[in-house]
């Protein structure tokens, strides 16, 4: 038990360090830009011609965004506000808070990505293991298709789905998160509409995931199938089903870390998918924020994505430490 605690502690410290670096990048990079976000808000208030009023407005806004203090001081204030869950004020939708904007976008993104990534991952692994085990015709069909599908970036696949199934065959709606006539509410009709609009973005993420995971799993399973313990077990006459179980378990472990490490790439790709379907999630919000130079909102979006990726990675590593005794002992020998 003590060993486990040491492992978790080490991982925990590790992730806190990563978090600090991520937070500082998130804070400092957008502030390297020349010019001042206040100017871009003031450009909206062109009607205010009076220089005195303008000056006053300028001062108020500078104060509100905390721009009158030196950068390191601003960073500390930023951190302090973060602990209170305050991400600042949006410029594009002034005076709406970034929190409020993100709070309405986040459920859409989570609802889209979590099921799609999990489904794609599970199905891909099963298919990959199947192809590796059966070889022959299955392998000849599954492998090239997976390879072709997975070299499509999520958003490219979305564009093609959008046209072939969406515009040409009009199977499912192609833009937005729900029917515009409906008001978001917890009733059956709204739910049905959400599912219908969910289909395309979901499919385009899940299918690409299946391909990528399938290829990884196939490679791992082939490697395990050729290993000595499998041959030895066969000589011993252990039942085939039992051997497959061993192989699957061993090939699965690297796939779990693989999921954690490539999560960042997947989430980013899926964000662009939202754009193609105009899905009301974080990706589309970020797109709008970038067009309007809404820096607080942009860094709010990037922050929330980074946090989500870090958190899921942390969870996966902890799970991994519990599932795979080899990793834990290796980690402990290192230290």
């Amino acid at each position: 038990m003590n060993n486990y605690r040491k492992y978790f502690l080490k991982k925990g410290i590790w992730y806190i360090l990563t978090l600090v670096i991520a937070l500082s990048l998130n804070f400092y990079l957008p502030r390297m830009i020349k010019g001042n976000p206040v100017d871009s808000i003031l450009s909206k208030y062109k009607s205010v011609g009076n220089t005195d009023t303008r000056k006053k407005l300028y001062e108020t806004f500078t104060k509100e965004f905390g721009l009158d203090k030196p950068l390191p001081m601003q960073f500390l204030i930023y951190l302090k506000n973060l602990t209170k869950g305050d991400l600042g004020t949006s410029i594009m939708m002034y005076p709406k808070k970034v929190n409020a904007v993100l709070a309405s976008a986040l459920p859409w993104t989570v609802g889209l990505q979590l099921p799609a990534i999990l489904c794609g991952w599970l199905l891909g692994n099963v298919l990959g293991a199947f192809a590796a085990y059966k070889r022959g015709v299955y392998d000849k069909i599954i492998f090239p298709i997976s390879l072709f599908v997975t070299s499509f970036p999520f958003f490219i696949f979305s564009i093609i789905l959008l046209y072939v199934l969406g515009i040409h065959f009009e199977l499912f709606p192609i833009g937005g998160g729900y029917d515009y006539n409906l008001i978001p509410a917890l009733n059956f009709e709204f739910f049905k509409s959400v599912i219908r609009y969910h289909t395309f973005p979901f499919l385009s993420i899940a299918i690409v995931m299946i391909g990528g995971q399938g290829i990884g799993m196939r490679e791992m399973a082939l490697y395990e199938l050729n290993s000595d313990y499998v041959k030895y077990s066969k000589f011993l006459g252990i039942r085939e089903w039992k051997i497959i179980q061993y192989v699957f378990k061993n090939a699965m472990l690297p796939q779990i870390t693989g999921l954690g490490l490539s999560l960042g790439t997947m989430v980013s790709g899926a964000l662009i998918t939202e754009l193609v379907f105009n899905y009301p999630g974080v990706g589309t919000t970020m797109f709008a924020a970038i067009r309007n130079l809404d820096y607080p909102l942009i860094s709010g979006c990037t922050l929330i994505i980074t946090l989500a990726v870090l958190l899921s990675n942390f969870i996966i590593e902890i799970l991994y430490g519990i599932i795979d005794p080899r990793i834990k002992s290796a980690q402990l020998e290192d230290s």
Partner: protein
Amino acid sequence: MRSSLYILLKSPKFMIGVCLLFVFFAFIVIYPMINTNDPLEMVNMRFQPPSSKNILGTDGFGRDVLLEMAHGTRTSLTVGVISGLIATTVGLIIGIFSGYRGGIVDEILSSLTNVFIVIPSFIILILVSVSIQAKSVFIIAIIIGLTSWPWTARAVRAQTVSLRNRDHVNLARISGFNTVKIIVFEILPYIMSYVVMAFIIQLASGILSEASVSMLGLGPSNTISLGIMLNWALLQEAPLFNAWWTLIPPALTVALITFSFYLINLGMDEIFNPKIRS
């Protein structure tokens, strides 16, 4: 070396990849010679369907899509090559240095690598692209290269660690070779095949990253790339005009180019990695 080249030429995956790429190369070299117009010039009404005058129709500005594709593919490939070179070089240097030196240098560099593997590089790419306003193709390529080295660094480090205490390396060390010489003559040749493959993957993902940032509207200014074409098509709501020719050709081109690079990489993997050679 000659024999592996020979096997490579017989590998169907490798050859299909190379042929596909060659088609695109021929297109971007030859087509601008035939059609010497400025790709940014408006030649027709907006969203005109494909016709004999404009083979792939026109986009929302009334520009010729096929001509834009030729110039856009060239930009995308340029970004891919430059960012791939930078990412591979940085990854190689950090990986070898950290793996060969070991000790505290290794600790620091590996930690740095791990931190940047976990923080999504696409997010850093967005943050940097947001903060630089006027971007040339080269700047975009450099930013992409500088954000995508961690994977290469990690793999190169692992391989260097396993090579560090091999007999031939020890022998070179006892013979009084200096570190640079040992790295260049005793370690690099063993990881070179891996580095070349890593470069190909980096190149492909560089093209994807460019397409992704450009789609968000953060791409290079005053030029055309495949991602920028997609960005325009989405901004001008091409789906509403049923203008598939503004979205599908650039999207497919990105996918086919990355596909051919993956195929080349797989073909090479089968040659250099005897374990999976069938």
